């Protein structure tokens, strides 16, 4: 009947020396190397400290009912302006009459409490002597991230379309995208509200009285939203009205953020540890060679031998 090796254990041999001795210095030196060298190698090979991280989340987006629709006609000095924001002259009755109807729907198809699509519909009355040459639509959105990096901001969805032939209807399908120039300063339990203010603030009206100023201001933000066109369809033909339908889908978005110190340590630790194990094995082999061959003076303590 053959025998199988089921378990094995080592017999410990201790090597002892005084505090001030070559052996002690060598042991300290190798221990320090064992600690430092893995760190240097892990750091110099890059990627030890994670500088950014990302996650995916479908934001909670709501239309804030602040909007500007500018339908430029062939006479650019007389655009059709649909807005309720007084800064842009909503008291222009002639222009307001042309904005016959606006319809807003926020659709949640998945039933998870987050809106999956924003549907905006404008119905414009076009004076018979004018034709629409371009459309600029600015929608103000309330944008919220709620999971890893809580954030709430007021952002814009900007849709532009130019027409070669006078249109009668525009159907636009697009995705709302999250665009960031820097990583979010992600802090636990602290909602980032840096940009959580209306872009059409009344306080700004002194200096920011033009749409270009607002757009320029928005451009210089670190975190914005943008609209990516999936497809758009224009129905040609000059009629006395024009319909603009915008289907704005709100997909899951990638958000980059600066990890916390703890998170960085979490990722750095396994990298460091993997090198430490190798160096530990290596230095143990070196020490084993040196002490077993008596290259450094030390007392060898064997548990099965008693002092005579």
């Amino acid at each position, binding site marked *: 009947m053959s025998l199988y090796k089921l378990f094995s254990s080592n017999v410990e041999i201790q090597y002892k020396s005084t505090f001030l001795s070559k052996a002690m210095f060598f042991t300290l030196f190798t221990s320090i190397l064992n600690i430092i060298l893995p760190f240097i190698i892990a750091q110099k090979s890059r990627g030890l400290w994670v500088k950014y991280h990302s996650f995916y989340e479908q934001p909670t987006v709501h239309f804030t009912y602040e909007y500007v629709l500018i339908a430029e006609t062939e006479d650019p000095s007389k655009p059709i302006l649909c807005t309720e924001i007084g800064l842009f002259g909503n008291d222009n009755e002639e222009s307001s009459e042309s904005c016959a109807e606006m319809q*807003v*729907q*926020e659709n949640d*198809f998945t039933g998870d409490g987050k809106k999956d699509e924003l549907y905006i519909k404008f119905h414009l009355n076009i004076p018979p002597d004018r034709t629409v040459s371009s459309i600029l639509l600015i929608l103000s959105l309330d944008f919220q991230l709620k999971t890893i990096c809580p954030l709430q901001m007021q952002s814009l969805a900007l849709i532009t379309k130019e027409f070669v032939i006078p249109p009668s209807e525009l159907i636009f399908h697009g995705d709302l995208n999250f665009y960031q120039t820097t990583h979010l300063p992600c802090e636990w339990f602290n909602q980032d509200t840096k940009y959580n203010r209306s872009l059409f603030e009344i306080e700004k009206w002194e200096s920011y009285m*033009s749409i270009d100023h607002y757009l320029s201001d928005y451009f210089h933000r670190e975190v914005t939203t943008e609209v990516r066109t999936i497809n758009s369809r224009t129905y040609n033909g000059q009629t006395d009205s024009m319909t603009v339908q915008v289907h704005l889908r709100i997909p899951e978005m990638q958000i980059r953020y600066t990890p916390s110190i703890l998170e960085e340590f979490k990722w750095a630790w396994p990298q460091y540890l993997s090198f430490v194990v190798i160096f530990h094995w290596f230095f143990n082999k070196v020490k084993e060679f040196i002490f077993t061959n008596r290259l450094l003076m030390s007392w060898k303590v064997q548990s099965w031998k008693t002092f005579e």
Partner: protein
Amino acid sequence: MRIITYFAFTLLSVLIQFCVMDYIQGKTQLDSKHIDPDVSTPNKQTKEKLQYIPDKPHALYYRTAEPYNVLPKKIIFYNDSIPDFTFTTTDNLNTILDVFYDENSSIYNISTTETFFTSTESEIVTELTIFEIKNQTTNKPNDYAKESSNKNCLCNFLYKVCDVNCCCDGDCSEEEKQLFNCSKVVPQNGPNSKSCSLYLFHNYFGKFIDNLFCVVQTNLPEKRKVAQYKPQLQEVGQYFKWISINIPNISRDFQRKPYAKGDYLWILKNGDIFHLDLPYANINNFCTNRKPIRFLNNEKIKCNVKLSDIEMFNVKRISEVTSIISVLNSTMNSTILNCSTLHCANWTVLACNEQSCSLYDEHVHEPKCVENFCTNLVLELDYIFNYYDSKITNSTLKFYVQNMSIVLPFFTQIVNVKFVMSNRSLDNVTRLSGTPGYVDGRPLLVSYAEGNRTDDFYDDPIEAKAFKSFSLPGNVQGKCVYNNKTDNQIVFGYNKRLKCRHEHKYFIDVTDAKSCRYIQNNLTKALNLVGKIFVSPLGNPESLKDEDWINLNTNTIDSSIVYGEYDKKTKKLQCYNLATRFFFQFTCITINEERSNRIIYASIEVTRKNISFIEDSVSTLVTLDVSFIDVTKPAAFEYAHGPRLNIHLPENFFYPYRSKASSLHCVNISIDLLFYLCFLCFTNKITFH
């Protein structure tokens, strides 16, 4: 062995706990209170809703595939009489799904729920019970149950009339439902799974583990009843609604008090008081709106207008009949509104051309249009208000008159508003370009004086204005126009390339070969590149000595190497080595963190060409390049020196038996060494702001 057994049992209990907790969490998510500032909404279309319900259950989660098989029987029918039908709120879906999931729900009709299972299940279903050990098999009938009522039928819109294509409408007879093809409405995509075993069987093996814990039906304890939160009417204010944002109601009435920043500027006309305003563009680049001129708010408005809407006509009329008023402290309490109790400043209207300004004369400067050409048209005007001694002492209107064609329908007009806190004209004030160094966008300061350049710069501001900055020609319809307008100056930090055609004003004899040198001299003179030119290294040359001014070496524009020859056959004057491109290069450094700059070197380079001229038109295409090169080295962080730990340990700490050991030094060194090592290791983690 006991330990292993104990460990195995612990692992098993953790696994079971995971299963149950995960399952419960999956259920309770539906109940979590969600305050969603949503509002108007809507109303989801059922068919779209159903599209998004996944058809495959996941491990450890409640079987969501059931409603997919069940719900369509109830609500997916399309009603032709009314194209779309909608839920009233989004919670309805959750509630309905809960009824399917939770048998203990007391809110809804349980018998209906049971009908689902008995009516839809056509195969053997294995029920797994978590809280009670129960396994049973049931044969499901193939027939559909007859609808006993119209409850929960979302396509029944006609009272006591059968809705077309509405299979759940109790008003419809069986014959009518057959017409609607009700039996074919249920989608049969994918495996017709009604149980875990069938579902697992139909799926490929790779998902076996995922679907291992598929749960078909449970009977949960009573206390896990779904709680529906009551709507709070107080939260309505948090929801987004239709709004109307108006400009704040700022009083536009005249208030008898001295001007403060942001106040309207008031004008008096026959005892009535109005405020001054100016056109501006807020939607596009056309002057579609007007806004008030506000005290101490400098403006530059640039917008397009039609000929009839040009601002000069409006401003001219105002300047004729009004005067700008200031409230004085001494007469604040007076109620009389006239120039005896208010300080009135009449308008000074100037008509400026490219070279100079003069008083506006109605007879001379009145705009006139003949056919498609207008003379004395004003497309740029300046309001200049001098505020001195707590009142507006002078108000000047500068009309920049020009002659132009009016073939095009629109014109670009510019309206500038400038406030000067002095009684003097800005023309008489020496302008600096920063203190001490240059600021981006400010004019480059130059001096043509041989000596005492700094003194010369501050003296005689009127006469030498044109020579304190370097003016570049403008391009008007392709031709070079030389004037002292600020737009054409070399300004610090702006790299430019200008091109225009220089036309020689004086008669040039193309038959004379020496004319080439004359053409070159004529061009350099027009560009003010004659003689010695010195550039101020700083935006404020107050403390500069003569040797500090940087010599812009114009020797490179050497006209002596220019020569020419006249070809009698072709009647062309061929000029060689004619300098037509002038490249101004300024090297600068940043002298402090406020982006104040100092020029350390300036040079001018020329590019020469061989050009031929004919008798009819002697003109040269000139290129002017300006470059500012910042040679400032990027700032480097200097890390602070590590703190030195001055630890005083007893001498016999390490060497108890040594009489005089110099161990302290060793300790200090070793601690310092350790500290530096740690510091170096974590250097990358330290950032200084």
